[in-house]
């Protein structure tokens, strides 16, 4: 996927989110790190369509990981900023790649500590399969078939200076 395709895909997903929630305001919560700029861009698109800016937030899931004792290097904990009073709201979690589903499991646990939302939905730019948990996305940018030995890397200009998606062999 190149830069234009990434933008078009994010806009399409934002439109789908609007449609599925039939105009109700949603809260977009980006999972650190690349879910954060994704959520911001989708929020801008939704604001252009509806003249109303959706609330956005960021979530760091490292404190909720189930593999903390197993990962070799300790993850750096980034900022979490969830808007106050998200009880009874419709929340869309935004992440770049949906893979095993374990990040989303952690994100669900984290979100539930902030209250009881009306719905929690999931938007992922890439769904690469290989789920280990019963988790599916409501909004998918692109579904791709991958081998377990491959790495899917989403690059966004806010962090990586370009918009692109690469599928690479693990080294």
């Amino acid at each position: 996927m190149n830069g234009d395709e990434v933008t078009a895909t994010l806009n399409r997903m934002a439109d789908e989110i609007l449609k599925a929630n039939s105009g109700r305001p949603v809260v977009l919560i980006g999972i650190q790190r690349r879910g954060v700029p994704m959520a911001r861009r989708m929020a801008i698109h939704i604001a252009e369509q509806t003249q109303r800016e959706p609330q956005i937030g960021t979530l760091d899931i490292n404190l909720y990981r189930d593999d903390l004792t197993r990962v070799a290097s300790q993850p750096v904990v980034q900022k979490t900023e969830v808007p106050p009073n998200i009880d009874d709201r419709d929340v869309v979690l935004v992440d770049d790649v949906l893979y095993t589903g374990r990040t989303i499991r952690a994100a669900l646990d984290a979100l539930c500590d902030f209250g009881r939302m009306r719905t929690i939905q999931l938007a992922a730019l890439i769904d690469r399969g290989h789920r280990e948990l019963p988790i599916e996305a409501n909004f998918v940018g692109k579904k791709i078939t991958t081998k377990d030995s491959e790495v899917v890397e989403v690059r966004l200009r806010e962090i990586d200076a370009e918009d692109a998606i690469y599928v690479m062999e693990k080294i």
Partner: protein
Amino acid sequence: MLKRKDLLGIQDLSREEILQILDTAESFQEVSTRPIKKVPTLRGKTVINLFFEASTRTRTSFEIAGKRLSADVINISSSNSSVSKGETLIDTAKTLDAMAADCVVIRHSASGAPHTLSRLTKASIINGGDGAHEHPTQALLDAYTIRQHKGRLNDLKVAIIGDVSHSRVARSNTHLLTKFGTHVWLCAAPTLMPVGVEKIVCENAEFVHLSHSMDEVVHDADVVMMLRVQFERMNESFFPSVREYFRYYGLTTARAERAKSDVIIMHPGPMNRGVEIATEVADGPYSVILDQVSAGVAVRMAILYLLLGG
């Protein structure tokens, strides 16, 4: 990741390690503002607070930090433990290790007690204050508070005033701040200034200055840190009277007004109001004393996470 088992002092921490702790603490501060102030990160880990000296904020702060990370926190104080039956420190430590504690926070009146424990236990040892040696978590939370208000740790003038001779806080802060190239002025009455104290930081000795005059150090300081007069450690007379001490080394309203307009006033607590600091100053607009307490929880969460998580 902190590549060490224990946190024993500031002296052997690198600048990178200190910044890593402070940056992590910034992320953790948010947890304390949530409606549910708890994350599951250290579930199943056991933290033991082993306090041989009185403490309110350090012990409570470690207990809250551990509990907000879902660790099990157990408090032991010397008066209600087997220490009162004559058990040695080493046996107490081995006992706790045999119960598979993951971390022991120790405060002891003997300098070096945490270092002794660290050689004998598998558990991570955190120094919660040892004698007049070090109090690393206090220096880290002070650095966090300074960075919060001044935006940096380098190129500042910090005046540390009061009972320098009994103060581990002064030593740990001097180690930390001089590592970043901040000038530290230690100010005390001659009887409360240990001989050769400026030599405690070998590498950055040019950043440590001594003074016996409060007015000389306060007027251009960016940070004024007052130290408690530690009466409980004084078995002889160090000054003629409390009133005289306050007149010469107390932070009065008049002295605070001669300081820089953006000065911040700190105190590690507990305060002796009317001895080293006037009530109006302690509760006044320049005081960040309660910010220090809030920072303490975030910094200790970060330390527990970096030592025990993963």
